[in-house]
């Protein structure tokens, strides 16, 4: 009986060997893909096992972490989440993350390769893994001014430091509080579903400052004026333009009129001051679609990958036929812009024509406060010549300072302010409430421009007059600029 016994022994050996092979396949070959499978709850358990690093504004953390009772140990908290959501985005145990919380997740969660050595060291010494911090360029006072200025109104504010491109304020209303769904409980799920677009027509999770494009309305006349000056269509800002009023749109039977002012043959300065449609429609036509596109692109239009690092939606100045191109020239054609884009226009004008790349992450720091990365200001383009920039500044300052100007509400004592209002009509036959726009910059007595800002308020008043831009959006822009200037003192 021993021969079959030996064979059975071999058979049992094969059984054990098969198990060993299977285990090697499972725990060696497949180990990584199983361990990092997103459905494997351990991935998130590890992720939330240590407090997350913080996002810092003006040296103070605007985020935090709180211990919970579930197996996801820590969840994210925000101080004044609704105000900061357009900057930080959300970070939820159940619903993932977006914006800075997602893009800088490596640093915040401590998983970034640059923290690897330190993490390994911590593992050996038994210290808990820590996340690094993200220092933003934002200005808390400006953010607060913008958020309070918008209040219950639907809209957005973007403010930039013209000389560097640092984003100082980025507000979108109505907003949402990411703390409400940072966890993974049923209450979190309810809060999450409440702010989804399908359940809330106001779409609070839309970051209007970066991700929504609007018809730029009259604020775009600054770009058209720049194109006209750069291409020599007018000799100077105070030269009369040969513009009929009303202006017949080329290749069309429509006639373009003005809301107010005496715009026939008006100078560029006067036309910008009272926002003549006729003058800028004609200028756009004179410059031509190709050159208009070139000028708009120098200001940052038609750029699909503008990363702040959160990617901004693409602002568009399209190829158009002549009548559409004319309407584009007054911001009412098929061109569209994000609030950030229009802030970039104002900032390039204030910065002597140099357009800086907007960014909101200043530094990344390791948990021990070593600096891992510092963002260097970067010039995107020379949008206009220094001379044209001076001319545009003069005109925009007239808009604010002249008693007839539309931007009087943005005046700040002791500070030179240049601005441009806009009222963008939209909807079928312009039936919907217009968007109120205001773009501006402030200059100090030493000639430096600390801030450029763009404000859009979606539900402009029924008054279609150009004044709405100045009336609704202007004071908000003023408060934001004032907040920045005050915080510099």
């Amino acid at each position, binding site marked *: *009986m*021993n*021969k*079959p*016994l*030996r*064979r*059975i*022994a071999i*058979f*049992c*050996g094969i*059984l*054990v060997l*098969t*198990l*060993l092979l*299977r*285990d*090697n396949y*499972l*725990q*060696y070959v*497949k*180990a*990584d*893909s*199983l*361990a990092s*499978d997103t*459905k*494997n*709850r*351990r991935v998130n*358990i590890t992720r939330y096992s240590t407090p997350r690093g913080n996002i810092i504004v003006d040296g103070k953390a605007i985020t935090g972490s709180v211990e919970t009772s579930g*197996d996801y140990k820590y969840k994210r908290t925000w101080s004044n989440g609704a105000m900061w959501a357009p900057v930080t985005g959300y970070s939820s145990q159940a619903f993932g993350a977006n914006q800075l919380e997602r893009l800088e997740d490596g640093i915040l969660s401590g998983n970034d390769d640059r923290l690897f050595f330190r993490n390994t060291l911590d593992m050996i010494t038994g210290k808990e893994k820590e996340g690094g911090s993200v220092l933003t360029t934002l200005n808390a006072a400006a953010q607060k001014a913008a958020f309070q200025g918008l209040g219950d109104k639907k809209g957005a504010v973007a403010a930039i430091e013209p000389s560097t491109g640092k984003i100082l304020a980025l507000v979108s209303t109505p907003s949402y509080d990411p703390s409400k769904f940072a966890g993974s409980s049923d209450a979190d799920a309810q809060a999450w579903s409440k702010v989804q677009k399908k359940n809330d027509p106001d779409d609070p999770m839309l970051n209007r400052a970066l991700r929504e494009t609007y018809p730029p309305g009259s604020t775009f006349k600054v770009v058209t004026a720049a194109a006209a000056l750069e291409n020599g269509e007018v000799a100077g800002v105070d030269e009369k333009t040969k513009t009929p009023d009303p202006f017949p749109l080329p290749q069309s039977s429509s006639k373009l009129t003005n809301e107010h002012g005496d715009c026939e043959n008006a100078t560029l300065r006067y036309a910008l001051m009272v926002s003549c449609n006729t003058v800028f429609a004609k200028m756009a036509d004179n410059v031509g679609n190709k050159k208009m596109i070139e000028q708009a692109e120098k200001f940052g239009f038609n750029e699909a990958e503008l990363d702040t690092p959160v990617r901004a939606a693409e602002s568009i100045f399209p190829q158009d036929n002549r009548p559409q191109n004319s309407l584009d020239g007054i911001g009412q054609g098929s061109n569209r812009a994000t609030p950030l884009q229009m802030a970039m226009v104002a900032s390039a004008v204030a910065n002597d024509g140099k357009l800086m790349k907007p960014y909101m992450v200043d530094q990344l720091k390791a948990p021990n406060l070593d600096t891992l990365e510092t963002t260097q200001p970067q010039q995107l383009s020379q949008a206009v010549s220094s001379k044209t920039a001076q001319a545009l500044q003069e005109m925009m300052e007239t808009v604010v300072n002249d008693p007839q100007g539309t931007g009087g509400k943005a005046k700040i004592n002791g500070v030179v302010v240049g601005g441009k209002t806009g009222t963008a009509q939209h909807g079928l036959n312009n039936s919907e409430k217009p968007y109120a726009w205001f773009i501006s910059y402030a200059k100090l007595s030493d000639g430096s421009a600390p801030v450029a800002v763009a404000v859009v308020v979606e539900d402009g008043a029924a008054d279609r007059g150009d004044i709405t831009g100045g009336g609704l959006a202007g004071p908000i822009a003023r408060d934001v600029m004032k907040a920045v200037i005050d915080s510099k003192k």
Partner: protein
Amino acid sequence: MSSTTNSPTHHTSTIGSIGTPSRRNTELALLVFAVVIPVFAYANVGLAINDQVPSGLLSYGLGLGLLAGVAHLVVRKFAPYADPLLLPVATLLNGLGLVAIWRLDQSRLLKQIHQAGTAAPRQLLYTALGIALFVVVLIFLKDHRVLQRYTYISMVGAVLLLLLPLVPGLGQNIYGAKIWISVAGFSIQPGEFAKIVLAIFFAGYLMVKRDALALASRRVLGLYLPRGRDLGPIIVVWLISILILVFETDLGTSLLFFGMFVIMLYVATERTSWIVFGLLMSAVGAVGVASFESHVQQRVQAWLDPMREYKLSQSGAPGIHSEQAMQALWAFGSGGTLGTGWGQGHSELIRFAANSDFILATFGEELGLAGIMALLLLYGLIVERGVRTALAARDPFGKLLAIGLSGAFALQVFVVAGGVMGLIPLTGMTMPFLAYGGSSVIANWALIGILIRISDTARRPAPAPASNPDAEMTQVVRPS
């Protein structure tokens, strides 16, 4: 030969001193390791989970040490020539199992789901009962051949045990498999005991019938085909395992019993044709039943695509869908090569049966590939010592019983570990010694007890040379 077997005990005492060493001291030394390793593991879990050495460390160490000590002393007294590895390896596995169960007891998640919070003390109690049965076996079963007398009683007993889960009011249906019964609040898996009783029956039956089965056969196509009437028993056993599959819907139990029978039949008859027959019949049976039994089909589907099954269970799809299979695979994968370390994994995510059927996943996650390979080799060692006992056994009944028990043990390890690791469809059986469950621990200690008894008989030094009646007259006086 007959003259030598009449009083073996008398002779051993006279030449014991110059025969095979008893190896009891080796066993004792190994037992020290088998107790100390789980004690360290226990301390490790406490340090990892609560940052302190668990308060029960001393009593746990003493308890396990005491049980191992008693077992050792009984072996030393009643089976001095037994294999020195079986007891230490079983003790080590049992000790590590206790640690893993205690570790899962600490999980908040599992405490919410069922009574797992108190599993470890109960398992320690079961272990004590198991060792008690082990001691009883060694003390009262002086010679394993006694069991031969109970061949047909064993058959009746085994059939009864197998049928118990089907008795209304007694049987329990847990996750579709009906292999448990419930008595006074305790869940018992009669299959675990049936395994041993059946092995006794098969060994007794085959010992008697093996010549008829082996010799009276025709040769067809190079295979020895048995006569029709000799086919009877294998067909009966096959039918029984098919019935188990149909009514208890457990592939593992069915496979285990049929596989054990085929192994023993092959060893008894030395005819390869039985293996071919066995494989054919089990394939026919498994495929046939799977074609209409939805529970088996579902197990097979869960095996083929555990991710789909996981998603179904999460989405609350109708029917019994379990996330366990996928959760177990994640546990193994997350463990990787070296594991997370005791107490630092998340195998509690397996939830139901995490500390019983799926306990291997906890080892996989916390001890890693290295730990699982060590455990599998430990199981391999038990099987190897069992087969070696069968080889060394001098009587056919002992050979058959030893190979039947070790073969069943190997098959059970394969079916359970293979199921948990996704190699074969999952079944409702448990890892011997590691898993939580009284029936399993108690029955397996009895199994080790029987193997130790057979190996003691096998390794006992050969009786003295035949005392020649002629020599009796001139016998010299031996120095005492």
